[in-house]
């Protein structure tokens, strides 16, 4: 936190600048300064001796506060404020509050003479160790603090709001008792600073910035202090009021859930949502103290949509694993299976229409245009069959197995093959239009848009070609295969690589804009919705990433790898996992709405049509569920 420091013009003798009271100086003919004990902000504390007790060394603390007001009226006002606060302090009596013995004002400075506390403030305690503080110790301190806050808040005639609860204002003395050592009196001495300041208080509640000071504010600051003590994360170094972004147990897992819950309650934005009194918070803390040791976490109330059971509309059994993704056109679902067949099923009822046999497994998704259905097979051929009856229209021979999804665009089919070529085929007669050679097998789906073809290949290169097959640019920054297909959003291509990263590449010239690191290889094709990219990877996670900045918004952990691609429909993200479940997640928060268990891994993506979700599983079945 930075503040500009002013050099003060020297007054007579001793007190030219902060911390300049020399040992040996006597104030008021009574207090002999022994040493500077500490300083900060606009005040310093000295260890001094009260000479009114000549036969013993009565040690006191002398707190010196510099009056910064230059205007004489302001100056007067500041001194009077100080004296009023000192009077108030003199009436307080509590084990945690240092006794006030005297106060006086001398030239530019005011002084408080108080009980000298031997010990350490909590900021020093944190500084002197690298470890997390033990929970029971923190809870004990918290209970003592609630006790003194309750005393202050109930003070008559007017409640005293401490207003400055933070680690540097709390000491632990040599008897291990908590002591409050600053009553915000230094506050009185800060004239408002003009111009921009950097840094905020960190512990102060939001309403304090509206000028509202209430007992509930002290409870917020106490919660903020406890948060800092348990997580070792200084709130002054973070955006203000962002404690919920740093959950205590995420940083320090040994903290009990009960304590975390109690502290969270005190950190509510609205004062009314916090504990109604320091006493109430103290009771909650004492309950935690009793129960510590029992590690039962309260049920995290996931605000799941009231959706009781996932409804299966139908399922259909094939003869082998279904690894690919279906496509639905005109109420007919087409999907390939590892039993070498392309199936056509009625999308509404799941009734079998026809199947077409190839000579190899079909891991890819078919393409369809209403009249013909196009499917690639591991037997190296691309077939076009009639949508109605699955009669063969034409066959195209590639040089290697076809594992990429064919794409139809302007009368042509674009498809990649393990023969490292992109094949562009005339849709009507199956004749080759042109091919383009890549550096490795092409298993990703080509993206065809705006007179350009974009695709990645197993050699880790990503290509951009024009419609004549000429290469416009090549992106080679990925370190492993690009099996995922790309999507193009607002001039940027998004795709994943087996090098564990999701890339955003500018579509015109191929510059890398950002890169997002995941926890495992990814072959999923990303989905885009409302400013976010959704993808998944071998680390079993489904991610939501901000499109403009490449930052993670949330992730959801499944129990095994995710090799299929997530899709977005309405406000849900649907993704299947190798753990056998199809998950439905809330698009904004990543919370699970439901999961549907199948009998085998789900490796393909789902498709949505007419409010139904369709997908296949390695348990040989095709499922249709209600969304």
């Amino acid at each position, binding site marked *: 936190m930075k503040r500009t420091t002013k050099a003060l013009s020297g007054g007579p003798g001793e007190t030219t600048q902060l911390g300049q009271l020399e040992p040996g100086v006597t104030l008021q003919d009574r207090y002999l300064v022994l040493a500077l004990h500490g300083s900060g902000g606009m005040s310093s504390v000295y260890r001094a001796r009260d000479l009114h007790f000549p036969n013993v060394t009565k040690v006191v603390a002398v707190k010196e506060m510099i009056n910064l007001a230059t205007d004489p009226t302001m100056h007067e006002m500041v001194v009077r404020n100080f004296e009023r606060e000192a009077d108030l302090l003199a009436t307080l009596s509590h084990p945690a509050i240092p006794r006030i013995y005297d106060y006086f004002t001398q030239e530019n400075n005011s002084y408080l003479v108080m009980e000298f506390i031997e010990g350490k403030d909590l900021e020093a305690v944190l500084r002197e160790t690298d470890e997390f503080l033990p929970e029971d110790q923190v809870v004990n301190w918290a209970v003592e603090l609630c006790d003194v806050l309750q005393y202050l808040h109930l003070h008559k005639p007017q409640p005293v709001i401490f207003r400055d609860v933070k680690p540097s204002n709390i000491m632990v003395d040599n008897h291990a008792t908590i002591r409050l050592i600053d009553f915000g009196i230094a506050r009185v001495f800060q004239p408002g600073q003009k111009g921009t300041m950097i840094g905020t208080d960190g512990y102060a509640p939001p309403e304090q*910035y509206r000028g509202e000071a209430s007992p509930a504010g002290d409870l917020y600051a106490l919660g903020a202090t406890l948060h800092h003590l348990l997580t070792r994360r200084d709130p002054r170094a973070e955006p203000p009021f962002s404690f919920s972004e740093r959950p205590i147990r995420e940083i320090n897992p040994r903290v009990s859930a009960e304590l975390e819950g109690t502290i969270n309650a005190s950190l509510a934005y609205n004062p009314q949502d916090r504990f109604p009194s320091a006493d109430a918070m103290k009771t909650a803390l004492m309950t935690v103290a009793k129960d510590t040791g029992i590690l039962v976490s309260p049920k995290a109330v996931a605000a799941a949509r009231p959706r009781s059971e996932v409804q299966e509309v139908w399922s259909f059994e094939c003869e082998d694993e279904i690894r690919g993704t279906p496509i639905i056109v005109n109420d007919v679902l087409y999907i390939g299976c590892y039993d070498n067949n392309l199936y056509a099923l009625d999308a509404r009822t799941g009734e079998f229409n026809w199947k077409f046999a190839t000579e190899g497994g079909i891991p890819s998704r078919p393409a369809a245009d209403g009249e013909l259905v196009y499917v690639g097979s591991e037997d190296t051929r691309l077939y076009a069959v009639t949508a109605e009856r699955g009669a063969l229209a034409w066959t195209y021979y590639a040089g290697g197995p076809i594992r990429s999804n064919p794409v139809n665009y302007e009368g042509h089919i674009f498809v990649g093959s393990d023969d490292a070529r992109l094949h562009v085929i005339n849709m009507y007669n199956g004749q080759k239009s042109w091919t383009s050679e890549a550096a490795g097998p092409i298993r990703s789906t080509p993206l065809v848009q705006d007179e350009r073809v974009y695709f990645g290949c197993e050699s880790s290169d990503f290509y951009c070609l024009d419609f004549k097959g000429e290469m416009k640019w090549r992106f080679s920054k990925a370190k492993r295969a690009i099996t995922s297909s790309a999507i193009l959003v607002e001039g940027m291509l998004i795709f994943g690589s087996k090098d564990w990263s999701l890339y955003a590449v*500018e579509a015109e010239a191929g510059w890398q804009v950002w890169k997002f690191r995941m926890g495992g290889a990814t072959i999923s094709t990303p989905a885009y919705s409302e400013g976010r990219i959704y993808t998944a990877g071998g680390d079993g996670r489904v991610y939501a990433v901000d499109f403009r900045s490449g930052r993670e918004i949330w992730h959801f952990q499944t129990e095994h790898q995710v090799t299929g691609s997530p899709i977005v429909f309405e406000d849900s993200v649907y993704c299947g996992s190798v753990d056998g479940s199809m998950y439905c997640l809330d698009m904004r928060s990543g919370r699970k709405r439901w999961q549907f268990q199948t009998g085998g891994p789900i490796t393909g993506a789902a498709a949505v049509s007419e409010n139904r979700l369709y997908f296949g599983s390695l348990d040989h079945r095709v499922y249709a569920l209600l969304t």
Partner: protein
Amino acid sequence: MPFWDRLFRRPAAKPQPDGAETAPLDPGLLGGELRGPAMRRIMVGTSQSTGVERAHNEDALFALLGSASGEGSVPDFGLFVVADGMGGHRSGEVASSVSVRSVAHRLAKDSLLHLLQEDGVAEDMPIQELVRQALEEANHSVVSRVPGGGTTLTAVLLLGSLMTIGHVGDSRAYLFSNGHGEVLTRDHSLVKRLEELGQLTEAEAAVHPQRNVLYKAIGQGANLEVDVLTHPVPKDGFLMLCSDGLWGVVAEEDIERIVWNSPHPQIACDELVRAANAAGGPDNITAILVYFPAD
């Protein structure tokens, strides 16, 4: 002797006006919009003023725009930076100028010079990473060279049809297109945070006594996290960068009106500064306005 004649000959008589009359200029042609063919290119305007109340100008700005054509040519390139300094004595002025220079140097070197190289091999690092590092470097420079000083910084790197924005503080980048305006950056100010939490309304934030308090700025020390995002350029629209001496003083509708009604971004910038001064000029004023054509 002809030579001497040439030297000392009196100059030929000046031509006499032939008394012809020209038709008066059509007033409709004068003051006609400069927009037209001129508006098919990217144009930039910049303007600064110390304002009315302040004695020194602690703002700094930098604007660089390049375009090229021809075979294998470099895409449109631009670098625009605004910084609003703070800190006692001259720390503010030094902090803002040091950081602007640091960012401009790093980004020009790592992107423009790379582009201009013969083989034009793209930089290894993602663009967003480049921008992030440039701001972090500026942070280290200010920390070590200007103790007690700090500055906001909003920088936009334009490459082809994408702009990447690096930002910390409460200077702002705006996008004006399709008749409406959008702030692209997030103010790192206390009041903005309170506004986001619903504790203050926008109107309350505008007059809050602590509206100048930032929780993030260049020069604050280690572990500075800056915001970086990428946005496509607008078509027939504007990018505007400005310090709070402009956005905190002139209402957004008025800013938009001035921007859309001026024939050239330079004229708009001068007009914006005038408007801020007319409204009291409580702070230094800086504005950079970039126009992007429709294609």
